[in-house]
């Protein structure tokens, strides 16, 4: 990372060098190297079990790497100074359901060393941020799933961290609450907080993150902006999906080879550079082989295509 060399290491939110971690026979992290820039929002994209949560826990100091080193703003991960810099939002709703939102925020604020007026101010800020001011004294367990997710975030951000780690914060949340969470994250980004956001929802990562790291089998297999990832892998070609009314005969499949078509049953996916011309040519070809085309779908390259290209499997597998 050439940019990393230009910045004071103590300013780097996260600097990960060759980190590996194994649980029994399973290699959870495999030689991870990653550097974040101040104020950067990094998305970790990968399927379940890819190593996203293990990596985020290692940054939070909750997992000890077998080898390699992780630094948070220049401090070793897991140390008191590193912990003071970061806020962690686990996948689980890590709250006290019997306590009210206000009491939960008070508890986690105290755990972060806040006292007196600073604590009260942080709690009020958290309640405003989450939109839970009117539910401040209700039991947290009685809140809706979306409200609890927001409270879960506020509990991790109560001490104004410089680095915010969010591990799939929108799991099980309805679209409306998800938008609210996106807004909350947007506010943090505006304040210059560095973010690491794990998800297997690519649209979230595309929307919220400056840079995306695709992780699979404990390795970062690609990283960059969305455009960089697309151009490095599938290119800017659009994807044409054709649903046919009959199986594709072998002669037709041979004729499709120059398009690098992917055939799955009666479905064909083809990367096209000139959509109008290519579509016309393909329809003629199918017509010549007497294979009816029932549906055509043209789409721009997505992270899903990138992931499919890199790993050979769907993101949500």
């Amino acid at each position, binding site marked *: 990372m050439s940019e990393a060399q230009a910045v004071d290491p103590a300013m780097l939110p996260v600097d990960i060098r060759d980190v590996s971690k194994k649980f029994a026979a399973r290699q959870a992290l495999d030689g991870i190297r990653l550097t974040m820039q101040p104020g950067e929002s990094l998305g970790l994209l990968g399927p379940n079990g890819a190593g996203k949560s293990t990596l985020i826990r290692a940054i*939070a*100091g*909750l997992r000890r790497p077998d080898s390699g080193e992780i630094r948070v703003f220049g401090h070793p991960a*897991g140390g008191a100074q590193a912990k003071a810099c*970061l806020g962690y939002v*686990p996948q689980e709703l*890590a709250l006290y359901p019997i306590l009210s939102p206000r009491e939960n925020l008070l508890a986690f604020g105290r*755990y*972060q060393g806040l006292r007196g007026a600073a604590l009260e101010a942080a709690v009020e800020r958290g309640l405003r941020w989450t939109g839970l001011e009117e539910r401040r004294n209700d039991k947290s367990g009685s809140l809706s799933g979306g409200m609890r997710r927001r409270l879960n975030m506020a509990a991790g951000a109560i001490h104004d961290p410089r680095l915010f780690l969010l591990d799939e914060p929108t799991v099980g949340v309805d679209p409306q609450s998800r938008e609210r969470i996106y807004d909350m994250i947007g506010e943090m980004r505006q304040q210059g907080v560095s973010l690491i956001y794990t998800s297997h929802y690519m649209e979230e990562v595309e929307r919220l993150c400056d840079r995306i790291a695709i992780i699979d089998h404990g390795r970062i297999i690609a990283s960059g902006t969305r455009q960089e990832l697309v151009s490095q892998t599938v290119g800017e070609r659009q994807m044409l999906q054709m649903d046919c009314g009959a199986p594709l005969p072998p002669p037709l499949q041979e004729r499709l080879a120059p398009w690098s078509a992917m055939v799955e049953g009666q479905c064909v996916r083809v990367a096209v550079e000139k959509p109008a011309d290519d579509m016309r040519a393909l329809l003629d070809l199918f017509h010549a082989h007497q294979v009816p085309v029932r549906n055509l779908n043209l789409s721009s390259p997505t992270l899903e295509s990138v992931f499919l290209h890199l790993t050979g499997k769907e993101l949500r597998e």
Partner: protein
Amino acid sequence: MILSVARTHLARLRRDSAGFVLSFVVPIVFFSIFTVVFGGGGRSGSSMVVRLAVVDQDQSEMSRRYAEALGKHRNLSILPAPDASQGGALAATEQAIRKGALPAAIVFPQGFGAQTLAGGDSAPSPSVVLLVDSASNPFAAPVLSRVLEQIAVAQRLQPEPAAVATAQVEEKLLKIETRDLLGAGKENPWIALSAAGLGVMFLFFTTSTAGGAIIDEADNGTLERILCTRVGMTRLLMGKMVYLSGLATVQLSVMFIWGALFFGLPLRGHVTGFLVMTVVTSLAASAFGLVLAAACRTRTQLTAISNLAVLVMSALGGSLYPRFLMPEFIQKLGLLTLNAWALDGFVKVFWRDESVLMLWPQVLVLTCAAAMLLFVARRLATRWEAF
């Protein structure tokens, strides 16, 4: 559908293999221990053994015969009489009983043999003095009286083995003077001991259940979040210790205040000693609760193990059943439990009216136990930290 629900729960139980085993092992272990503690190990029946010293001031042939008969009795265990170098044998024995070093004693005063041999309806009955502490063993006095009467009848019948109605001759054969050195004059003497016994047992139940909150925190991710803050595991455990100790102190205090208000428990006049014992007992109970919670993987395991541990400790330590009624080796084994030390302290406060300074052995043992258990809990809790 009903069976499906049952099968699901069975599958969950099978997943928690430790809990599965414990659910069968706990009742067996508990049954076995209770049988040993209360039933003499299932070999010697349930006969109670009274431990006592024999003080023979008479040194006559008759008193020796009585002492010999006492020594042979299967329900009696004769302990060495206290050193009588200062203040005479009787005073030394009384002092030993007051201090709890001796549960009971039979004193054959001077002239006992002569009175026995005098016989005749007009002659005074020979006197024997029974020194007991009804707190240490309330059954000592009736048991020893009965044994002495049996011996008296046997001694009387030896020279002329005619059929004599025992009930008719008992009063004339022997005059037994019973002196309860500690219980006499006390109002509701058993209330404090009962409150202490049950109170300490429930203290352990409370702390082991409340201590299990850390298992819930680990399950729902709250523990990970806490470990990401400035609160490390050591501070977390210390904080829990403070909370549990406070909870336990209030619980025991409420119980004793209730006893004082409605059952005449003599709390007034013993407040300082009570508070000292309550605080150290609460500390030990809290650390004990944390050890159990840190050692268990699931709530099911914790429930099974804490029930077993608390009930066994309570049985051996005297919370459920007086230790003086247990076989001697079980009494000694009981000293390995926190209950026994706690109850000994409360007995000193409420029964023996001893000063707070005299509580030092119990305070020392319970405080050291609390420190050691907290250390063990901290070591066990490393499994929740970064791995």
